[in-house]
């Protein structure tokens, strides 16, 4: 009996010792050692199994069962302990990796379109949704296309409306507007109906200052068809203003004069900076002059190859830089082509 009880007692003592030691361990490697010591092939618990023959036959099952209970109890404790140790090790690791999240990020090298490319695309996009296609024409133009064919004969007082750069080649000028594209597109597409936008760089001979540039982007519209009226001109431009400047923006049309349109008009948009109350952006007028427009003059239609008794059309011209200046409160038009990165990178 003493032999039997001695194995059990040994087991009990062993379990107690193992649990005590386990409690004090904190690292994974200590736990591994502990496992080898108490549960490994040559560990103490296993030795008890090997010593079973020492016990009387009838007691062996009881002892074996008890030894198994001890073994699994210890394994369970180990697993628990292992989880706890791993969790605390991870915790310790993570806290060691803490960053100062307020340090600046590393900038990727971001490229940008020039702001005027962006705004031109935006305007073209709005008109594209209304069925307008882009048409381009040369920047250096003949006097014919820039003036004569647009109903601006030589020495006509209307010529005073454009300060022109002349080249040393006779009758060759830097286009003062994209309007030559009206004739060029009509001649290219005749006799189809036309709905085009004509964007591009234009030139005016004038002293530069915060509001005047010798080179600027213009964008014109041209519509030609058999049933185009002044009402369509108003409808199209009002829709553009709403998309460009906001659904609620108010517009007004007032008579104006351009040799290549008749009736001619100026479209004003209610100042979106001050909401029409008057501010420096609109010269305290409450209105912004956005675009000159009108029905295509019969002479221009004829020069484009369209019979003015059958076809009508309308045209409108916008200054792209002006739109950007108003929208982004840019106070000097000369910023655009100076290309100072401190300016360009703000967009």
């Amino acid at each position: 009996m003493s032999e039997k009880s001695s194995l059990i007692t040994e087991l009990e003592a062993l379990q107690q010792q193992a649990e005590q030691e386990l409690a004090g361990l904190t690292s994974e490697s200590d736990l591994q050692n502990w496992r080898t010591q108490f549960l490994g092939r040559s560990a103490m618990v296993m030795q008890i199994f090997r010593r079973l023959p020492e016990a009387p036959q009838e007691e062996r099952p009881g002892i074996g069962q008890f030894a198994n209970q001890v073994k699994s109890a210890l394994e369970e404790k180990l697993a628990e302990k292992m989880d706890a140790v791993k969790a605390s090790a991870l915790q310790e690791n993570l806290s060691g990796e803490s960053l100062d999240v307020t340090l600046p990020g590393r900038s990727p090298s971001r490229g940008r379109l020039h702001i005027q490319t962006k705004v031109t695309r935006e305007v073209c996009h709005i008109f594209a949704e209304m069925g307008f296609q882009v048409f381009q024409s040369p920047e250096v133009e003949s006097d014919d296309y820039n003036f004569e064919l647009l109903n601006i004969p030589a020495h006509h007082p209307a010529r005073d409306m454009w300060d022109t750069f002349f080249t040393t080649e006779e009758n060759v000028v830097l286009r003062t507007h994209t309007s030559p594209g009206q004739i060029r597109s009509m001649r290219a597409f005749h006799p189809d109906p036309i709905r085009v936008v004509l964007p591009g760089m234009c030139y005016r001979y004038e002293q530069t200052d915060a509001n005047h540039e010798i080179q600027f982007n213009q964008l014109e519209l041209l519509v030609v068809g058999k049933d185009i009226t002044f009402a369509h001109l108003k409808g199209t431009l009002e829709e553009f203003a709403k998309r460009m400047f906001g659904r609620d923006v108010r517009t007004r049309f007032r008579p104006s004069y351009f040799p290549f349109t008749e009736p001619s008009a100026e479209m004003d948009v209610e100042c979106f900076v001050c909401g029409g109350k008057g501010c420096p952006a609109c010269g305290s007028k409450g209105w912004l002059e956005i675009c000159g427009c009108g029905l295509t003059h019969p002479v221009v239609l004829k020069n484009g190859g369209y019979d003015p008794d059958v076809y009508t059309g309308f045209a409108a011209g916008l200054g792209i830089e002006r739109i950007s200046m108003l929208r982004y409160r840019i106070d000097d038009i000369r910023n655009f082509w100076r290309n100072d990165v401190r300016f360009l990178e703000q967009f």
Partner: protein
Amino acid sequence: MELVLSWLKEYVDVDLPLPELAHRLTMLGLEVEDVHVIGKPLPTGENKGFTFHGLEWDKDHFVVAQVDEVMPHPNADRLVLCRLIDGQGEHTVLTGAPNLQEYKGKGPLDKPIKVAYAKEGSRLYDGHKPGFELTTLKRATIRGVESTSMICSEKELGISEDHEGVMILDDDAPTGVPLVDYLGDAVFSISIPANMVRCSSMIGLAREVAAYLDQPLRMPDLTLPKGEGKANDAVKIEIRNPELNPRFVAGLIRNVEARPSPYMVQLRLKLSGMRPINSVVDATNYVMLEAGQPLHAFDYDVLVKRADGKTPTIITRTAEQGEILTTLDGVEHKLEDYTVLVADTAGSLSIGGIMGGEESEIRPNTTNILLEGASWNFINLRKSLKYLRINSEAGYRLSRGVHPTLAEIGVRLCLRRMLEWSGGQLAEGLVDNYPLHYEDPTVAITTADIKRLIGIDLTAEEIAGLLRRLMFVCEVKGDTVTATAPAHRMDIGTGVNGRADLAEEVARLYGYERIPSVRLDSELPPLRSNPKEERNQLFQDTLVSMGLQEVISYRFTNPDQENRIYPPESKPQGVAYVELQNPIAVDRNVLRRSLLASVLDNLERNARQRERLALFEIGPVFLPVKDQLLPDEPMRVAIAMCGLRYPSAWDRKDKGTFDFFDLKGVVESLLKALHVTDIQFEADSNPSFHPGKCAVLRVNGEKIGWLGELHPQVTANYDFGDHTRVQAADLDMDKLFSLSPKYFETNPITAFPPVIEDLAMIAPESISSAEIVRVIRATGGFLLKQVELFDIFRGEQIGAGNKSLAYRLTYQAPNRTLNDKEVGKQRDRIIAALEKELDVKVRKAE
């Protein structure tokens, strides 16, 4: 053009609030730029977006007064004391006005002097301070005399900048009446469109206002009193070229006396921006502002003298080429043969419609005056104006077209004004030579035309009604209105142009704001793609996605500026530019030929701002072509990069700077985006680039452009700050795009694993990587998918003049897993080919 409201009201009844009138004028096409309010209260509340400025004269403080006596100041020579009656009582008022000095000590005046009088407590402008500064009139003692009120100058009342003396009003000014009731006014600054020069007069503006308000227009009296002696006997008129001078009207007035004009006349001239001179000259200017007809006064006695005492003959003719005339401003003009002169038998007198000559100009003592009102061909006149570089009010109007009818109206009005203001006697009748009658056009327009153009339904009667308000003579028959233009406008055409003109007038009077807004509802035109625009966007977007900043430069430059892209010795000579006749500045006298130069200019401008710059531009260059009117405008793309390869960060150790291969990588990626495949980079020389770091790019064998590191001598032409090495490329965008396929095929994603092998070899420096890759690809067969250089090594172990190159080869089959045997066979073939075709030694795998 300045619209003086009180003046306008002589011809039409207007009783609108100022903002409303400004709004209506603007909506008629007569854009009001600002409004100078004189004496009256500034509008409060809704200003309809117009700016009003001016000084209000409150009725209690500012009145018309009369000075009955001017007395010396006891202690000051320059000051006088005025005995003044303001309608309520008598006051002694102190003033230093020089224009009252002459009345000093003359005792009580026979005729009181009417003045503008401000009482104590008035708010007015300080006449002695520059600009317009408000002050309050306070009791003060000046040299021992107490002063509480004052007699005002125009400046003090905010009328003009004039502070030379006090205002001396006309004799009929009513003493005691609030000043604002007598002089209160508003001046509208109006910008007149080029086709509305008929409105650059008070009557012209009144006509538009009358039409808009549907009010009658009151024309001034044009009748002339009976004269003495016939004008016809006093001067003959001969017109040599009626095309250029369709009408010449002359009147004669004798024994005039030039004196100061009535104050109201002077004031109106000043408010219109003209300087009063004397009653004779003022009459011509006044009538030009009133009716729109420029007039010219000749000294009749000079004409008679030049005709040796006989009846002078006025001859209008074109100048002899090089003929010389000195105008009344003392400038000697050499004339072109198209300029029309007013001359007599002795020679030229004036430049017709532009400026008078010195000899026959009227002087203060001139008594007999021949008055000219003529009409001129406006195109020819504008040509002369431009050539002579003369700007004048007369030239402004006549170069835009003044109707011949106005010549007579102007002369009649002016003769009446001269008689009234300067005295004298008229000669009977006018001398009127009108050889080329202006035919006022008649245009037929239908209700369908208005519908077709404007998009509104109007009856023929409604159309005629609108046009009649504008003084068209209209006849209605069914749906057709036949309208004849009134005899004061020259902007109405005939036929289809005339219909457009009438449609505009109908729309204008109907009101643009009443025309409905309709979306385009017709069938869309045939859709055409715009490959050029799509290409621009593809290039821009691809370069931006690689971190480059787009710039857009001035197209203006000059050859020296542009030639900085070449070393001093290699500047090209005799290159043709698109050159400007009238450059804005000497350094902007041509259009660019090089886009690279544009981008480098921008790089230079920003070099000191950034430690890293990567810029690109796409755009045209301008190349003159012999025997071709317009230059070619090919599109190019230029790239310039310098400084740090990666944006710096607080912990980034790599401070490497952009080199050739960064630039080449950008170009390669761009080519990849274009899906071009047959690409060659070859070492090449180009004066702009470092001789050992420059490649020419060929696609499908065609030269596209160069890329490389700028030649140090080129870099030295610029100020790139600390950046010593600049990588740059200049490529032909048109050609590149034309070589890129419109469609391309994608490769299937295969599920079978690739076999990857490294191949290292030792090669002499003379063999380029491109040659090796070419041989590998040529022998690798279709299973070889990719060849990638991953290492270059130079060192003693492999011998001087040699390099070791290591490539990673990727083999893959679309339908099965490759085995070593298959790959080995390919490898052996590649090695054999390399060693046979090139002088390389492949290192055997360990």
